């Protein structure tokens, strides 16, 4: 391995976010957080804890009301927003596939926007279909003809299309049935082992967080509580972490135990 890169890929410095700058509607308070190259940082917390807000600040769907957020050492407000977003893959729970595009056009969207030649796009699409475990003939189908799990696979393929170094995933497996979810989680781990993207992954599911994350950032009411590795989290006596473990019962598995360290 080459020299470890110590500059954080994403860095929050005292970031607060308020809706329309209204102090009574603060969604995020004084967040300090670093995401390092190649890690999978999980933002764990209940609904309304500020996880999604944190994510949307990274690709500048939202801009900080206070503080500074750096991506690749450059403040997001200095980035050309379109360039910034095209180097960040984005996967959301609702998938958000374009219903009037075939799977092929959905996956090939960002390369097309970046003016790749048609044959290279088509090649890439088929490569990605294979990568996310979809049949090549899925390419010509429309999102409505796919199952939930297939759709989310397409969503992941679409986010990976232009090989972005950063991946933001907002409860990507949240709407799937437990068996499909477990399947996609496993595949994600295998994928991540090969691709080594910098991933920020939002979930409210502790099992998923422990399984997927290299570090877990626990959030509550717009504040970051702790950042710990899954192993640390399991032995943590921090009250909120303990409450989480209680709520989810006894047995957990971390990615290290799965052999994906």
């Amino acid at each position: 391995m080459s020299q470890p890169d110590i500059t954080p890929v994403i860095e929050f410095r005292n970031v607060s976010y308020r809706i329309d700058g209204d102090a009574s509607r603060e969604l995020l308070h004084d967040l300090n957080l670093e995401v390092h190259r190649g890690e999978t940082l999980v933002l764990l917390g209940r609904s309304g804890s500020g996880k999604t807000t944190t994510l949307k600040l990274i690709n500048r769907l939202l801009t900080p009301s206070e503080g500074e957020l750096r991506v690749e050492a450059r403040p997001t407000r200095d980035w050309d927003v379109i360039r910034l977003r095209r180097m960040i893959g984005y996967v959301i729970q609702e998938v958000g596939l374009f219903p009037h595009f075939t799977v092929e056009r959905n996956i090939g969207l960002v390369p097309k926007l970046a003016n790749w030649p048609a044959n290279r796009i088509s090649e890439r699409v088929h490569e990605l279909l294979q990568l996310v475990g979809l049949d090549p003939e899925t390419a010509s189908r429309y999102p409505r003809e796919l199952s939930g799990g297939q759709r989310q696979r397409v969503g992941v393929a679409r986010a990976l299309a232009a090989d972005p170094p950063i991946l933001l995933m907002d409860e990507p497996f949240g709407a799937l049935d437990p068996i499909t979810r477990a399947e996609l989680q496993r595949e994600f781990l295998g994928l991540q082992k090969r691709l080594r993207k910098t991933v920020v992954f939002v979930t409210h599911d502790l099992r998923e967080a422990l399984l997927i994350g290299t570090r877990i950032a626990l959030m509550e009411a717009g504040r970051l509580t702790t950042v710990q590795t899954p192993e640390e989290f399991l032995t943590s006596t921090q009250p909120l972490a303990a409450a989480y473990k209680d709520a989810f019962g006894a047995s957990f598995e971390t990615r290290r135990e799965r052999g994906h360290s």
Partner: protein
Amino acid sequence: MNTLQFMLQNHTEVLELTLEHLWLVGVSTLLAVLVGIPLGILITRWPTLNKPVLGGANIIQTIPSLALFGFLLPAPWIAARADRLAMLALALYALLPLIRNTYAGIKGVDRAVVEAGRGMGMTDRQLLFQVELPLALGVIIAGVRVATVISVGLATIAAAIGAGGLGEYIFRGLAMVNNQVILAGAIPAAAMALLADVSLGWLEKRLSPH
């Protein structure tokens, strides 16, 4: 049967008035589409314009048609010819359904889809033309359909200011107290409205995203 006989006897005139009617409706609807759809898009981008634009179109719609023809009389160039005047008035009436449906169609596009597009780095223009407009097309065509059907009906009144069209027969029949003549205008106008409704309805269905 008498109405049919009348129409057959005067078939050249019936045809002429029908074409005139079609021309009035066609040009005015086209004008309204060219103004209404961009206005509808505009108010999705600048929400502050939303109320004044929709409010304005709403107010126009409440003006009785004869009065609107009257209001437009002082307009230069437009009022020089009755058909121009009629077309402008009809276009103004058609604006509301077009603006409203364009706006509602775009706003009705699944938020997750729009957010995904924006998050992937689509520019506003790309988002509009590749995602929002295609997905809103069915609703927009529904607006065109409503506007066209309204126009076909309203255009009969244009005869009152001498703009021609099938209203000629209706007004003539009213003056003569002759139902056949009234019906010779009303039946083709109704047929035209039905035809527009059915064909645009078909188009609406075809262009609606699954």
